[in-house]
């Protein structure tokens, strides 16, 4: 039986890898992938807490399920917008996304 | 509906009338009708008030009415007047009336000008009839904001800068006031916003120590409390005539009124404790304003600094906290309001002709515009406290009242304050000598004309008011000193 802490360590690492990726990637798609990592670490957390701490109920699992759905929807919209950007400027580099500032 | 509310309703109706007015004549018609109605209303009120008092009415506030407004917050629309408010209303009505004539020839955006002007009047009248902290504060702010546009759009000189500075500083003051009002409300147990009821509740002294200075400074900003007075010279210099009149004449009085009615009345213990700080500030202000006026070169700046000096005297007298000095303070508000309005009216008329306010560029105006010049001399003499005009009785009441406080500190300050009457004479006479007397320096000025009827009327009204108050002060003094008493007895509790 694997300890709960191990799962949590994994999810935490995923979380911060995601955050790190978000902060450092230059490509919008890569950033999107990093966000997915963050969201997935959340899913793991919910599932693990449910499984180990509150085995009698399903709240955590359901939350994970919905979270997965939501993140899918978000990704879809995000990709659509990124495609739109690509159509506009033929480029999806973050550095080109700073016309709005100040 | 209490008839006091008419003071607010009439200007509102005037705004409505202006909205539908089609041309300049209709605008003037609306304004004259409305302003006259206000004047009549104020006089009627004064008469009714006197009759009530003569009939033995002893309540602190008369003609009171209170409508629940925001029940959960204990906010009422509560009105009522005592002697102080009556004279202030009278003053406001006179100044509004004369202000209308002083801006008779307003060319640009006449309708809009008068609409904001009316809004300003709403605030002023509303403030003086209210006896509920919230309502008072609301009207107070209503009176402040139209200033921005009135100065910014219709002003002269560095109007944008001045307008912004004035508005922001006064709003800063009102932020302090709001803090103070909240402090009073919660300090008194969060049960009422009514002035008279609050006065019966002892606010804990620790609260007072925090909120008295906030409230006092807040109102003091408008009352030209040193060192928060710097909006005044710039603001008044840039404002159009009628606005300067109303602002210096009435609005600055809101400050003194608020200090007296709210800060000292509701927080007497802290007031007594901390009065010395503000006494020093106001004492400085009295002399400082007068000295500053001595070397100014712009007519309006001179008058603005003079206002600083005189309004500081109001606060000074309030802080002396004797019945006589407070009566004097109110008289001084009344008197300064009339005088400064007269000054600004004349300056505006002179400026309208010479297109300069620099005293170095004018001389010998007595020859070309004798009427205006004579009025100016009268205003100047009134300002330096000549007996027979209102300034004298106000200052004397203040000095005698202040001298009642028997200790070295207060005495010294009183004597310092009295020196202002000499310095006032210095700058007034310097000005009169330079600008009005002598030979005409600028040949172009020889072509100028004297005042027209619409200019003469407000000047005459103001001079009559100043002289009337100066020659027959006993009635006013009685009304005021009776009404000052509740505050003074509050201090003795």
């Amino acid at each position, binding site marked *: 039986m694997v300890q709960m802490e191990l799962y949590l360590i994994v999810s935490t690492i995923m979380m911060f890898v995601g*955050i790190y990726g*978000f*902060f*450092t990637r230059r490509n919008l798609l890569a*950033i999107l992938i990093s966000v997915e990592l963050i969201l997935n670490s959340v899913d793991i957390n919910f599932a693990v807490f449910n499984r180990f701490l509150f085995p009698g109920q399903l709240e955590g699992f359901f939350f994970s399920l919905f979270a997965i759905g939501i993140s899918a929807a978000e990704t879809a919209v995000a990709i659509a917008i990124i495609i739109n950007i690509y159509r506009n400027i033929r480029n999806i580099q*973050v*550095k080109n*996304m*700073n016309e709005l*500032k*100040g | 509906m209490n008839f006091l509310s008419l003071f607010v309703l009439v200007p509102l109706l005037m705004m409505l009338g202006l909205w539908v007015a089609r041309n300049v004549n209709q605008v003037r018609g609306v304004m004259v009708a409305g302003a006259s109605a206000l004047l009549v209303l104020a006089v009627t009120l004064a008469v009714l008030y006197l009759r009530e008092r003569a009939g033995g009415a002893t309540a602190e506030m008369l003609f009171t009415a209170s409508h629940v407004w925001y029940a959960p917050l204990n906010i009422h629309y509560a009105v009522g007047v005592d002697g102080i408010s009556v004279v202030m209303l009278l003053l406001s009505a006179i100044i509004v009336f004369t202000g209308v004539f002083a801006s008779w020839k307003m060319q640009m955006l006449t309708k809009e000008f008068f609409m904001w002007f009316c809004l300003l009047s709403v605030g002023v009248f509303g403030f003086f009839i209210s006896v509920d902290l919230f309502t008072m504060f609301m009207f107070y702010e209503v009176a402040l904001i139209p200033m921005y546009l009135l100065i910014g759009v219709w002003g002269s000189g560095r109007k944008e800068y001045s307008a912004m500075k004035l508005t922001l*500083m006064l709003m800063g003051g009102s932020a302090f006031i709001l803090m103070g009002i909240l402090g009073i409300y919660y300090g008194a147990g969060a049960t009422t916003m009514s002035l008279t009821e609050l006065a019966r509740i002892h606010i804990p002294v620790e609260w007072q120590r925090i909120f008295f200075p906030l409230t006092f400074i807040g109102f003091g900003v408008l009352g030209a409390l*040193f*060192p928060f007075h*710097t909006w005044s*010279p*710039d603001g008044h210099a840039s404002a159009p005539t009628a606005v300067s009149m109303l602002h210096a004449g009435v609005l600055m009085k809101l400050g003194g009124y608020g200090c007296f009615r709210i800060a000292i009345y509701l927080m007497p213990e802290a007031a007594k404790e901390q009065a010395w700080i503000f006494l020093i500030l106001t004492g400085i202000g009295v002399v*400082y304003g007068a*000295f*500053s006026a*001595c*070397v*100014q070169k712009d007519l309006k700046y001179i008058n603005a*600094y003079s206002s600083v000096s005189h309004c500081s005297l109001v606060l000074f007298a309030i802080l002396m906290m*004797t*019945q*006589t000095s407070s009566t004097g303070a109110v008289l001084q508000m009344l008197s300064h309001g009339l005088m400064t309005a007269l000054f600004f009216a004349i300056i505006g008329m002179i400026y309208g002709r010479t297109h300069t306010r620099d005293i170095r560029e004018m001389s*010998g105006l007595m*020859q070309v515009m004798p009427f205006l010049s004579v009025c100016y001399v009268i205003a100047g003499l009134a300002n*330096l406290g*000549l*007996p*027979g005009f209102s300034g*004298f*009785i106000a200052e*004397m*009441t203040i000095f*005698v*009242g202040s*001298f*009642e406080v*028997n200790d070295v500190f207060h005495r010294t300050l*009183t*004597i310092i304050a*009295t*020196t202002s*009457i*000499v310095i006032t*004479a*210095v700058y007034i*006479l*310097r000005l009169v*000598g330079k600008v*009005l*007397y*002598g*030979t005409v320096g600028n040949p172009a000025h020889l072509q100028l004309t004297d005042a027209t009827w619409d200019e003469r009327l407000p000047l005459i009204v103001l001079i009559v008011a100043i002289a009337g108050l100066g020659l027959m002060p*006993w009635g006013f*003094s*009685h009304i005021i000193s009776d009404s000052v008493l509740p505050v003074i007895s509050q201090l003795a509790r």
Partner: protein
Amino acid sequence: MEHTIFLLALPFLSFLLVGLLGTCLKPKVAGLVGTLSIAAVAVLAYVTAFLYFTAGRGADGAFATLMPYNFTWLPLTETLKIEMGILLDPISVMMLVVISTVSLMVHIYSFGYMDGERGFQRYYAFLSLFTMSMLGLVVATNIFQMYVFWELVGVSSYLLIGFYYKKPEAIAASKKAFIVTRFADLGFLIGILIYGYYAGTFTFTPQAQVLAAAGTMMPLALGLMFVGGAGKSAMFPLHIWLPDAMEGPTPVSALIHAATMVVAGVYLVARMFPLFIGYGPEVLHLTAYVGAFTALFAAVVACVQTDIKRVLAFSTISQIGFMIVALGVCTSADPHAGGLGYMASMFHLFTHAMFKALLFLCAGAIIHAVHSNEMAAMGGLRKYMPVTHATFLIACLAIAGIPPFSGFFSKDEILAACFQFAPWMGVLMTFIAGLTAFYMFRLYYNIFWAKPYDAAQAGGHTPHEAPKSMTIPLVFLAAVTCVAGFIPFGHFVSSDGQAYDIHLSLPVALTSVVVALVAIGLATWMYKGAAQPVADRLATTFKGLHHAAYRRFYIDEVYQFITHKIIFRCISTPIAWFDRHVVDGFMNSLAWVTNAASVRIRGLQSGNIQTYTMVFLGGALLLVVILLLF
């Protein structure tokens, strides 16, 4: 005595009528309105005086103090109030007579003198205003009413000095007069405040036990009040405004700056006399020293002035000094034992008003004739202006103290009082009296004798006698000057109210007459001829002294320095700078700091989504840290 209200009401109405209608009235009509009202006032004043003094004395042997009117004008505290009313006692009645007489003469005289001047109506309006104020001052029932009218006479003086408002000198002089007296009035006001607080009343008759409790405050109050009086009465060092005030029309100088307003300070001290004697004798003596010094100083300066009105102005200062000295040397309220000065002072006030007004009116006639104030432009005028000459001579003799003219009697009483006080004071005052005679005759000779009139120099203009409207007042005043000395003044006015017989003290009288005659002789020797070798030699020998005296001992320069350098440069300008740059600068700097901060932080909004999220996360973590730590 109810009619006394018209004493004030008539001039006031005339002021309002003439002042408000202004140029709508024809000049003559305006003058007539003013003159008639003053004539009525004069008649009323005489009637009042007659009724008052014939009403008989009270049980205590003094004339009753009447108060036909007194109402509360401005209530101040529970005990203090400013009242307005009319108080009749010997000195106020005496003053009524003096003021109305001189005023009436000046009104009549001005018809001729001011003929054709622009602003004739204004002139008469101001004269009426002045007369009203001055009458109000003397009938004041309390010190505050006195102060009220005191200010009003000040302002009428200001307006009248500045009557020729196009003349820069007139403007400056009027300003100076007002500000200097105003400064002095500050002392008066503070004195009143102290008096009011400690005496518990503004009336002249406070309760004795209250005063006794006041301790040193009462002398202080009285001293400060005297400062006010000194300002109005041009005592050193507050005298500087009076010579300059001669820029006003000459009749005005006669009325205000010779006969009436300037003696207000004397009147004030006389009015407060019981209090001075009772609670501040040392202050009273101080006034005597001030008065004596002023008298001397002014007399010396008068000896070298060349402007005839200036000479008269310094003479006025000197004579007021006499009056103040007379009051100041009093040591008790009993005229027989040290209180003689009170009566002497009032008597001198009375006679001086007449002959000094006469002198000024003569000077006016002369100036009217030669269009100049300078002695250099005159000389030999006695042929052209016989009436003026005669009346001027009478006045000169009076002021020099030659019997039987009025000045002799009153000055003699003063000298007697001074000798009673201290011999050196008597000697000093006698010497000054001699100086007076000297400079007055220097003036007289320079105007009417000396070199023959040089018409060519004056542009072919031949001087001529003044019109009737001007000479009639001269003659009237000269007549009064001749006879006034025989009035049994002590029967009307004395320090304790009892009748006092004026009896000349022979040694004093003799000395003074001899001194005066010697001085006149000296003046005759020095100035009668066309060439004045002695005077010129003296002037060159004592060049420094002469110049200093001519420049009035540089007191004006000191004032200039104080006002311009200190008040304007060293106080006002720095304060104005401070206000604009420090106080206002602070407010502006608040705005500046806000703006600068705004500019600085703009870069934080970089437009980079990754920075945004870093701040997002960083902020969240910071909040966690804050919450965990605190």
